[in-house]
């Protein structure tokens, strides 16, 4: 089913993974695609793992992305991006917020958090662009802009124009006023720039 685009978004409950995927879905619908979006998030509100699968194209059957078939991975947390990296097609791109969110089981000394999850991804052959979404958002004036930074980061990896996705972001924040919309435009642009910069070898 090569005419289907598979986007995997992963992170931790409460990070905005599901909202981000919802906005990506809206963009795909705006482009006239059939869309299916699915989550595994039974107890995600309790700090568990969240993955959101988005598939779009002419006609989507199974809502689930099979391992090794994702076209792009959007990771909201470094180790979570590594956890799901085998879902990517060979040579596909991962865009990763390099935040490290360490769970209690690690703090208790029961398990180890990897020293360099981004490095591990690259070592596994995944093309990885990593950036610090929280700092970008904070520099723009609000930590909550992180979600839009992430959407900006994936915008140039989609089979349609980044403007289509930006329009969906703008639509979502429209009723919060022009100031908020403008902030989100800036965050989107900053996310795009950060991903482009990270993807280009220095």
């Amino acid at each position, binding site marked *: 089913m090569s005419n289907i685009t598979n986007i995997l978004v992963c992170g931790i409950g409460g990070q905005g993974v599901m909202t981000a995927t919802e906005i990506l879905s809206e963009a795909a619908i705006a482009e006239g695609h*059939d869309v299916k979006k699915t989550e595994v998030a039974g107890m995600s509100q309790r*700090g568990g793992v969240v993955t959101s699968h988005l598939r779009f194209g002419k006609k989507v*059957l199974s*809502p*689930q992305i099979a391992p090794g078939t994702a076209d792009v991975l959007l990771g909201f947390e470094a180790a979570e991006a590594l*956890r799901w990296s085998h879902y990517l097609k060979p040579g596909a791109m991962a865009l990763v917020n390099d935040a490290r969110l360490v769970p*209690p089981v690690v703090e208790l000394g029961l398990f180890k958090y990897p020293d360099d999850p981004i490095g591990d991804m690259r070592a*596994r052959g995944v093309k990885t662009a990593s950036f610090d979404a929280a700092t970008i958002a904070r520099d723009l004036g609000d930590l909550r802009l992180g979600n839009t930074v992430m959407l900006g980061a994936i915008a140039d990896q989609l089979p349609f124009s980044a403007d289509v996705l930006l329009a969906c972001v703008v639509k979502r924040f429209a009723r919060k006023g022009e100031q908020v919309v403008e902030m989100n435009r800036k965050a989107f642009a900053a996310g795009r720039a950060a991903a482009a910069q990270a993807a280009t070898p220095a």
Partner: protein
Amino acid sequence: MAAVMPAPAASRLLMSGNEAVSRAVWESGTKVCAGYPGTPATEMLEQLSTYPDMYTEWSVNEKVSLEVAIGASMMGSRSFSAMKHVGLNVASDALMTLTLTGVEGGLVIAVADDVGMSSSQNEQDSRHWGRFAHVPILEPADSQEAYDMTRYAYELSEEFQVPVILRLTSRICHVKGLVTVGERIERKTTGFKRNAERWVMVPGHAKRRIPLMLQREQELKRLSDRSPLNVIEPGTDRRVAFITSGPAYMHVRESFPDAPVLKLGLSYPWPLEKMAALAEMADTLVVVEETEPLLENELKAAGFAVHGKDFLPRIGELAPEVVKPAVERLLRKEAAPAPEQALGVLANAPPLFPRPPTLCASCPHMGIYYTLSQLKNLTIAGDIGCYTLGAGHPWNSLDSTICMGASMGVALGMDKGRGEADKNKKILAVIGDSTFMHMGMQGLLDITWNRGNVTVLLLDNGTVGMTGGQNTPANGRDIHGQQAPRIDFPKLIEALGVKKERIHIVDPYQLPVLFKTVRDEVKIDDVSVIIANRPCVLIEEFKPFKPYVVEEDKCTGCGNCVEVGCPAIHVTRREKVVKPSGKEVELAFTRIDSVACTGCGLCVQPCAPEAIVHFEPTMPRIVVKPV
């Protein structure tokens, strides 16, 4: 949730299966909807409560919710009841007699199976109820079908005067797809028709209803073979033909796009003639069903040579990465793989730490489990809710979890069944407010009546926490958030036979008081109830306090705060030291994530050097402002 204007007819909307079912229930002119929260079914009633012109309620349990739907149907109104798979176990007593009386107004039961167990104590295949209760089962494969089949379910229910089960799974409930919606029909309620022979199920009446039920089942069987919901897609790849239903259909189509497939939408009664016709179309016949081999066994009994659970997993979802390699191996006549391989556990998945769900920062249950983890010689019967997480690290403070309300009966049984080895054990039960009202009250009555020696911890956080914070009689709000009678736990518990002096109300954030109360009550040879009453951090009653920080120069690395189990506490460095006794210990120096901390103060109390203090923000709270 407040009533909003529903989207106009002919809108094409991105809807989850739960949202699609809800829209169709509303459009069908349904008058009464009831349910109890449970993953993955919860959002149906949540959505329905936002639609106008209907009565919706959270019931105290699934059995009551089905009974409410039955009453409404008797009045000639269409009704709806939604629950998760284990909920139908509770409601089954009503279902098994409802199938005899039949329905007047259309009655649809949506039951959602947690296939893959993202948030359940077991995995069940609710299709079993079709055969057991002699009622039709409809199985949608995506959101549009969930919408279409729900509308059809009401027609079917009224045509055959039968309750209809809409069998959903997580992969229907929580998948969003595009749905074209319609309009709400205006449906007149036909009115109650007094008829004891139909509605009063005493043996004499029931005996006359059983043949009618069996006759109805035969008619449904004939319908199944001609129903357009059961369709053969002929295909061109005749190596293998599939019989499948629900989300598994999509996985089969994804994996074998050109194979002949019999897709079952009306999966009970099954269409035997269509099954026979499909069997003619390929050399190999495979049944792909989540989760039990129901159809497979029926086909085998009917003399067909079929494959199914001999090479497909018996548990979990049958995603393409599971089905495709398994069927290809079958076609190559290779041996069945080991179960873990069949489940698609991939060798190339990076080995990583687990990230299990855990209690939230400031969760009042943390105080309870920290206390229980510090006491010795306890045996603790647990229950269903967020507080089941007390079985995990670092508390490890639950010894059993069975089903809703089971902590009560199990604790009594532990008390009565103990032998010499457990003579000095203190038996406790831990239960949440909603679970207590769901099915725990009867168990407590059994403890008092039969003079059990159990200390009950009733964790009243004023909500159904695990499913996202639904209202309950404990917070005095109905499904719409409107004021409703609020249950008085001390009075209720006293009425159930617990002595007034054995009922304590404690603040779970006050560790010394909590510790002393539990320690004192477990020593007394009587039933005690300790009510911990702090609101869940997810509901409006919770007001965050000022966050704390660890003063780095005061922290001695004792790690006591880590033992509280709060996700806002992080270890900054570890150091191995040798104590004067010669014992080597690892010190853990910590910091508090001030964004996540809501200042409950639980970690402050065990901190020996008083290194945890209030955080005085050096920067103003971050707000949206132009740059």
